């Protein structure tokens, strides 16, 4: 096994896991709500992107901003119309409702798209690579994927830490009651958080569709990777989530290099080890 190569590939794959995780982290961070359908929406986004590309011939990267805009609107509407109604009555209602959504999304996709494995083609860039010297090379596409993930992390950090919207997000997360008496309209704010989460889902879905072959039933796997990246990285910082994704990616890459059957398992083992040793995560900013 070439360690350097394995770690580089794992790091770049970790960018995708970080993209999975950041959308989930936004929602959990602001309204302490867990979207069980998160992974299924990633799969839904990939099918929708595939359809859009087939219909218009657009380059997959051009579909990303379009998909992000559509998903942001959808996320806002879903939050205001449905998910807000599940808040305030304990942890169970949002879990059950989003679990139900997950089942609906998966089965609609099974019904309409069949269970065949699909993939988004990336003309020209599928196999392009950059030589790094010493016999090493990185794929151009995985590199772009990682750069986009890092850019999303930076953008989210800026939104949360440098803007009024971010102050409102953190205030509501700290103390919803006091936030309401200083004038924060939390229902609307939760809609914005969901819009951001779904925009990130749309970005993640295109990269997932190019990187993997996917079927309608993969959603729960992606939800699990997203969870693992968040737990490894720790709550409260999107850079931590990015790092969590990278650690998960590296663990899987090393596992795969040792034995093709061990990749996913290695990721789970690292996740469990972090949970045992540092339950708050490696880079947690808030408890």
């Amino acid at each position, binding site marked *: 096994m070439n360690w350097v190569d394995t770690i580089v590939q794992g790091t770049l794959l970790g960018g995708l896991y970080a993209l999975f995780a950041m959308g989930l982290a936004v929602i959990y961070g602001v309204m302490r709500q867990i979207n069980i359908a998160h992974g299924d929406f990633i799969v839904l986004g990939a099918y929708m992107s595939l359809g859009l590309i087939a219909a218009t011939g657009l380059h997959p990267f051009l579909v990303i901003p379009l998909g992000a805009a559509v998903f942001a609107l959808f996320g806002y509407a879903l939050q205001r119309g449905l998910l807000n109604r599940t808040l305030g009555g304990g942890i169970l209602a949002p879990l059950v409702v989003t679990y139900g959504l997950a089942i609906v999304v998966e089965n609609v996709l099974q019904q309409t798209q069949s269970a065949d494995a699909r993939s988004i083609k990336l003309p020209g860039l599928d196999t392009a690579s950059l030589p790094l010297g010493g016999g090493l090379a990185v794929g151009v596409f995985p590199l772009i994927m990682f750069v986009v993930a890092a850019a999303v992390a930076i953008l989210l950090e800026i939104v949360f830490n440098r803007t*009024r919207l971010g*102050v*409102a997000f*953190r*205030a509501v*997360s*700290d*103390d919803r*009651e*006091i*936030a*309401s*008496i*200083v*004038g*924060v*309209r939390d229902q609307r704010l939760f809609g914005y958080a969901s819009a951001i989460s779904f925009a990130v889902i749309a970005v993640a879905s295109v990269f997932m569709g190019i990187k993997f072959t996917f079927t309608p039933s993969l959603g729960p796997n992606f939800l699990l990777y997203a969870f693992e990246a968040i737990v490894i990285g720790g709550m*409260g910082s999107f850079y931590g989530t990015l790092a969590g994704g990278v650690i998960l990616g590296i663990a899987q890459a090393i596992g795969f290099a040792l034995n093709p059957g061990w990749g996913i398992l290695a990721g789970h083992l690292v996740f469990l080890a972090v949970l045992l040793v540092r339950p708050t995560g490696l880079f947690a900013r*808030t408890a």
Partner: protein
Amino acid sequence: MSALLETRALTAYYGDFQALFGIDAEVCEGERVALIGANGAGKSTFLRAIAGLGRSAPDAILFDGTAIGAKAPPEIAALGIALVPEGRRLFASLSVEENLSTGTFNGRKGPWTIDRVYELFPVLGEKRRASPSALSGGQQQMVAIGRALMANPRLLMCDEVSLGLAPAVVKDVYAALRRACDADGVSVVIVEQDIDLACEMSQRAYCFTHGSVSLSGESAALTRDAISAAYFGV
């Protein structure tokens, strides 16, 4: 003087427990009113009800002639009612300056800016980047008051500002509060355990006993005997 805030037979609940049994009270424009009474008499519940945190009958609370009893807290904040809550309740993950800035979320224009709060409480300017947890109790209370002032309120409600503070600090905080409110003619409701301080700070006072008003009048005219009689409901 006309009443800025008026409650008519206001009832309110603390959980499942009825805490207020028909409160009639009023606060005039620019007036400072104290609420005194034993623990559990309903003072905090009264302030929370006005801020919109309880479920009240629509016309049980009138603000500037408008019925606000059924309005949500952000709408009430937008009308110019600000609360300094019991226990300060600062946002833990926000810096001092960010905490102050949340006061502006109600969208009201007015004389208060971050710089004016720092003029009032210079120590906060030095700690603007600090986390509230790094502040002393008195400084935290200054942030809570500053946050409420940043809302440019017409009515400022302060719930036990002195709780857990050293006596000297309490004096400073109240002096600053008085300066700040007198300058702009802001009406103030003060809930305070220290009766002497409450009477000194206010023009009128209401004494709450078991969720009802047991005594009210000009603060200067209230005698200690009358207050202790009202306090214990004898």
